[in-house]
């Protein structure tokens, strides 16, 4: 039932806010930022987001389940280090497999601890994050790992070959993963179940859904996606620095929330998160193109995260405050009432 046209329009605006934001940032940067509007720059931006976009896929699913995964940043670095560190021993197929499986194992551990031991997800992942951080430094000895064989360079070149304008194999991998997971979430029963588990775990259980299995699945997906992001990233750069995934967490969390995935769970989508990542990256690229430094970029990224968390919290706060009240009814009354009565209503904050 439609209550009034205006509210409906606002609700629609909120639903599509990320697409609107995308168009606004794109338009602004195209007009004002020097050298922004070029195929070369767009390819650079798409390459730059390839890793974080892949990571955001899994992170969004975890957040749809109403959980958080703080370990993604270290999983990226972990998988990157394993890929290049084990390459001399196992060759690329072997080392990539070990890296992705290692990621899956971390996710499985997170999931078991959250679902079975019933510990808060951000406490668990804070712990695994610290463990992994130690493991990474222990393994690499604090140095970055690089592989400088012809094979590595060939793979790196291949991943950056331009198949079509704006489309390199690296971007294609991300695109395929996004489409696959988005399809899974929207069209399959398993995908819908993630939303039900996130929306209300008890209801989901009473409806006959194995909630634990979905929680574990979400964490495994998150870590595997983070591992794939790390693997592809180091394959392109042929070097794994220990700072690879350092601030990915910040980018991915803010993008996922901006994309409209609720921290309380049960709402959101992978494509929206990726569009948000793209919008943010355009913003950061614009900052760099305006001639501002990397520090400004980090500062802005932090500020944006703080803003979206605050906005989200404030929206929930307003929602809870207005719960049980009917602002549209009060407004309608206000149009009919005399000015004296309006004043009375106004003092009650209608």
């Amino acid at each position, binding site marked *: 039932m439609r209550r009034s046209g205006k509210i409906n329009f606002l609700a629609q605006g909120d639903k599509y806010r990320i697409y609107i934001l995308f168009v606004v940032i794109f338009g602004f940067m195209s007009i004002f930022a020097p050298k922004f509007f070029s195929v070369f720059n767009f390819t650079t931006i798409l390459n730059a987001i390839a890793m974080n976009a892949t990571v955001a896929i899994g992170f969004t699913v975890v957040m749809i389940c109403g959980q*958080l995964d*703080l370990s993604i940043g270290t999983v990226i670095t972990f998988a990157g280090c394993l890929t290049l560190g084990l390459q001399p021993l196992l060759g690329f197929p072997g080392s990539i497999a070990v890296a992705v499986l290692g990621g899956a194992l971390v996710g499985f551990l997170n999931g078991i*601890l959250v*679902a079975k*031991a*019933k*510990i*808060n997800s*951000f*406490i*668990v992942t*804070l*712990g*695994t*994050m*610290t*463990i992994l*951080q*130690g*493991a*990474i*430094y*222990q393994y690499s000895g*604090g140095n970055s790992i690089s592989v400088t064989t012809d094979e590595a360079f060939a793979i790196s070149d291949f991943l950056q070959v331009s198949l079509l304008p704006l489309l390199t194999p690296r971007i294609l991998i991300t695109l395929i993963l996004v489409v696959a997971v988005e399809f899974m979430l929207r069209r399959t029963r398993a995908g819908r179940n993630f939303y039900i588990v996130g929306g209300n*775990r*008890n209801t989901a*259980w*009473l409806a*006959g*859904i*194995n*909630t*634990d*299995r979905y929680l574990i699945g979400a964490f495994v997906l998150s870590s595997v996606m983070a591992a794939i992001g790390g693997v592809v990233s180091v394959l392109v750069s042929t070097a794994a620095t220990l700072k690879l995934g350092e*601030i990915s*967490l*910040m980018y991915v*969390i803010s993008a996922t929330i901006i994309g409209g995935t609720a*921290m309380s769970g049960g709402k959101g989508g992978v494509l929206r998160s990726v569009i948000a990542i793209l919008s943010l990256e355009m913003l950061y690229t614009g900052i760099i193109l305006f001639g501002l430094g990397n*520090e*400004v970029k*980090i*500062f*802005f*990224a*932090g*500020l944006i*995260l*703080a803003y979206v*968390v*605050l906005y*989200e*919290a*404030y929206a*929930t*706060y307003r929602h809870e405050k207005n719960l049980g009240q009917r602002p549209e009814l009060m407004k309608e009354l206000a149009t009919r009432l005399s000015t004296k009565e309006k004043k009375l209503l106004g003092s009650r904050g209608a």
Partner: protein
Amino acid sequence: MSDNRGPAPDGATDGAATAQADTRSVKTGSLSSLVNTAGVYGIALLFLVLGAVLQFTGAIGNFLSPQNLLNIVDAVALVGIVAVGMSFVTYSGNYADMSVPTTMGLTGYICIELLRYGFIPAIIGAIGVSLLIGVLNGFVVGKFKANPIIWTLAVNYVTMGIIRLVWVNKQIYPDMKGSSPDVVALFDAIYRLRFFKLIGLPLVILILLVVIGQFVLTKTSFGVKLKLTGSAPKAAKLSGIPIETVIMTSFVLAAFTAAIAGLAVTSLSRVGAWYNGAGYDFKAVTAIVIGGMTLAGGRGTILGVLGGSLIIGILNNIMTLIGIGTFSQDMVRGAIFILVVGINAKSLRSLGRDDA
């Protein structure tokens, strides 16, 4: 009907089980909490004995030497100071303050910058700025109920951005900023001052903080409000407790002790760097959890947190002496953290109480 959906989540059980949960709940008096706190110190003592045994078997040298014991105490002092403040946040049911690392870093920068105006203004200015961060954290988490971990993490990034923006990625040194040598000497003394050539100033501060903290938590009306806010925020709000103010105060306390620790660390390293406080957030949370304070809030003691810091300190020292690197120590700490939280959550649930 339901064969493969796994065990029921909390709250999805039927009425009979809920009634059962009531009978299972056990009253904990002051005696049992004393035993719990004593247990923490018992574990600390166990680790001391372990160190001694390892020394006698020849695995490690010099564990019991006065110098080494002093090292342990010094290390405990810094972690302990952060942990005591942060435990108020944990006690209020808001898990942890992740903005501690850069708060510590920023404190160092501000203090070194202000040293040219004298020692006291520098300290006051530095602590003042960190209190602002605490107020901000407390306001957003208390008033709007933002997820405390994510919000303080965001503040951590913003503060890091501010430091790296304002000081252009540079470290600063106390003697470079045109401040008088006397003032610099005073600043250096923050960490190095020793009473009777033994007890460092940070340790004295820690003991003071523990005594005051324990008093505030158990004997004052604020402590009672905090306990109710931590264990049942809705009930607290309905009974007229200003939970926004209570939560804000707890975050301000955390920022205050982080500032003190930040000053001590900066004085120790004689350099202001944005990574000065790196790792202290997690060390402090681990100490708090090991010390018997549950992450669900409203349970635990400051004395226990001191014991937790002690355990962390002794464990680190033994691991260093055995030759386990700093990074492997991170792994051990992380594993212990998860283990303790897991056991804690499980035991609380088996008592029929809420989950941590």
